[in-house]
């Protein structure tokens, strides 16, 4: 498989230079390098600029409602464990309307990968502040600056029981690709906060702004990604320096591991036939 095998003929609708391209290319390369075939991958998209990627990425796809991609992906994975299920959603979508689903999916640890395109704005609706926007960020709906403190997706994911928690940057597509590969291979719920500059609406968190700040956790030989305390401490760093890489990983059981009825043949591959309910009627007789 090659990266091009995951590209449709539909022309991209992203702005030239959009941070989404870095994520898109890294994801396609990750899928190709893992030897996955388009028909064995189900990508579930949110609504927003990131979700529009549904048209130009060639896999099976579900374009969900705003905020609702994660439960859809969980349901699909429970029904067909053979699929590689990946969610691509924005930070407005995932950290705003979809926040509840995010926390509960982390708790449940279904074996899916969740990539949040973090550009700190609602770009498709012309640039309002997303929940990830830094406090004071000025936009159309918050002309005096956003009052709420920014959501920290990495810390939240760690607190809610994430078994794979990472952050990548669209300007460093190679590292992002490696993170995606590790996330897809991880057994359990993998979360990636993908920093991705919106070149049209966000004039603060630009490529340069990030390049001046990001450092890789991989460069620190002391960093132990199985240590949740260290991960928490690191996740709180944001400002002059911004860490990227895999913050934390453990191998706790997935949601399906707890369901003995899902052992063996994939649920949707079992024959669908009229079930004899006679034995079930005893308790009502």
């Amino acid at each position, binding site marked *: 498989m090659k990266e091009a095998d995951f590209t*449709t003929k*539909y022309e991209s609708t992203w702005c030239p230079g959009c941070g989404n391209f870095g994520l898109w290319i890294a994801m396609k390369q990750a899928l190709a390098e893992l030897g996955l075939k*388009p*028909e*064995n991958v*189900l990508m*579930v998209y949110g*609504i927003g600029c990131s979700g*529009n990627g*549904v*048209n130009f990425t*060639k*896999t*099976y*796809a*579900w*374009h*969900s*409602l705003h*905020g*609702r991609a994660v*439960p*859809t*992906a*969980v*349901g*699909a*994975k*429970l*029904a*067909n464990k*053979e*699929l590689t299920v990946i969610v691509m959603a924005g930070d407005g979508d995932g950290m705003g309307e979809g926040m*509840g*689903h995010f*926390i*509960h999916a982390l708790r449940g640890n279904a074996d899916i990968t969740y990539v949040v395109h973090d550009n700190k704005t609602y770009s498709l609706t012309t640039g309002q502040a997303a929940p990830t926007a830094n406090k004071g960020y000025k936009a159309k709906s918050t002309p005096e600056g956003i009052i709420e403190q920014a959501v920290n997706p990495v810390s939240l994911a760690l607190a809610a029981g994430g078994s794979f928690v990472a952050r990548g940057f669209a300007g460093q597509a190679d590292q992002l690709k490696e993170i995606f590969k590790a996330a897809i291979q991880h057994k359990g719920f993998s979360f990636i906060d993908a920093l991705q500059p919106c070149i049209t609406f966000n004039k603060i968190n630009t490529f340069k702004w990030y390049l001046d700040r990001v450092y890789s956790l991989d460069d620190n030989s002391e960093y132990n990604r199985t240590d949740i305390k260290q991960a928490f401490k690191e996740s709180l760093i944001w400002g002059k320096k911004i860490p990227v890489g895999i913050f934390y990983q453990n191998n706790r059981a997935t949601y399906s591991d707890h*369901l*003995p*009825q*899902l052992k063996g043949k994939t*649920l*949707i591959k*079992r024959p*669908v*036939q*009229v*079930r*004899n*309910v*006679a034995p*079930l*009627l005893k308790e*009502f*007789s």
Partner: protein
Amino acid sequence: MKNKNKLSWKIAGEAGFGIKSAGIMFGKIFMKAGYEIFDYVEYPSLIRGGHNTFQLIVGTHSVNSVTKGVDILVALNQNTVYSNITELVPGGVVIYDKDKVKLTAKYKAQGIAIPLTTLAKQAGGELMRNVVAIGATLALVDQDLKIANQIVKNNFKRKGEKIVDNNLKALKLGFDFIKKNFKQDFLCCLPTLEAKNNILITANESLALGALAGGLNFYVAYPMTPSSSILHYLASVAQKLGIVVKHAEDEIGVINMALGASHAGARAMVGTSGGGFALMVESLGLTGLTETPLVIVNVQRGGPATGLPTWTEQADMQFMLRAAQGVFPRIVLAPGDAQEAFDLGAEALNLAETYQLPILILSDKLIAEGNSTVPAFKTNHLKINRGKLLNQTQLNKIKGYKRYKVTNDGISPRALPGMKNGLFIANSDEHNEYGFSEEGSANRIAQVDKRQRKLDTFAKVLPEPIIYGNPKAKKTIVIWGSTKGVLLDAYTELKSRQQKKIKIMQLQYIWPFATDFVKQVLNKSRKVLLVENNSNAQLGQLIAQETGIIIKDKLLKYDGRPFYREEIIKVLKKF
């Protein structure tokens, strides 16, 4: 005067008194004794205290309604005397706990004082007052303890031998007390008849069983009264049957999880009540646009908002018909009793996959939580229909596969993720035949029309409304859902001279609407009466919309209570 083979029995007290468990045991005793049962529970939304009642209607023919009148009332507390004593029929009796309850002078003649607390303690614990009362009632209605002993044994088996023995003792103490202290000339007499092959079940449980029979393998829900027992029942059998049953984080998560599963190929269903359905609404539209098969059950309660959480109402029909923005096809079904809930539960999954759209099932608290006796369900007549779901061999033969292909019947061949040669987007944006986002005018019209055509296709095989009574009668009563029970029970009690003049038309398939059939029936009727458990005649509105016929005579009830049989008999006699 004796009432042979008929009984209306009510036990009442605080939540936590074992009202419901006593009721179920009592029901099973009479089912085993060859009788038909319907039960009705009233309870406030709390766990301890409050005032709970459990009423059992026993008869020899199928029973599906509640009577206002009570033959035997069991008062476990004083509040029952205040709240329910006026329900006693002439000649009816109240069994009251002499140790705790005082009867007013007016009702002394109807009172049967039993030291329920003393006898229960004697058997091993005060909690068994309910079982003592069952024993006493059995003695009053000329039923022996043979069947009752077996039912009590089965009921307490899992709690250990001591508990079983104590309860058997309690049963006998109540029975003997009546035998010793009261003469046996009572108004009801229910000797053991020949047993039938019946089960005692609620419409929630039978709907779940119907769906299971129909190949359900994925159920998601968030607890909400009065739908929760579907979730509880399915969760209890999930591991044994090899299906996924998930209690999700909220109703929006519920429907989207089910959509994901269905998209992947599962036979999926979700269940909730009106409030939870309201949360699902945006995703209902997504179901329609992505043409994903899904069964959605709304067990109605009194609304709006939190409303009357534990009471019955039929006020969500117009909401179900209209819910979500935009236009997309849906099928709406309304079972009238436990048997219909089983049948439609199985059929709904077939319809969902055949027409690739949401199937909405409207039930309500009365039948969803009320047990009734029905013949043990059969499955040999059932079939699985997965519609135009492709297998890999069929898909291999298709060049340039189009998931949303514009077809004459509106239904497009369906591939599943994981299949070769079938890639497509299930898109919440308007899309072209492949699923790619497309906003062009011609494509929009083609896709809207294609989706709507699925209903025209279904309309060709739409089951007709059900007619009961004399099909040629000029007087027609129009009903849907759980009011079926009370209308049929009341009708049965009419003289045959009156019966001949009346027919009852039940709409089970609400949408698409059986326009021609309903129009014809109504046009041929001299008198029409609409009976609905809501305040604004929602079926009446639908009939007016689809046929232009406005039904003027309406019997509407919206106090959270079901229609009582007496009310309907009175109306039918005058009709």
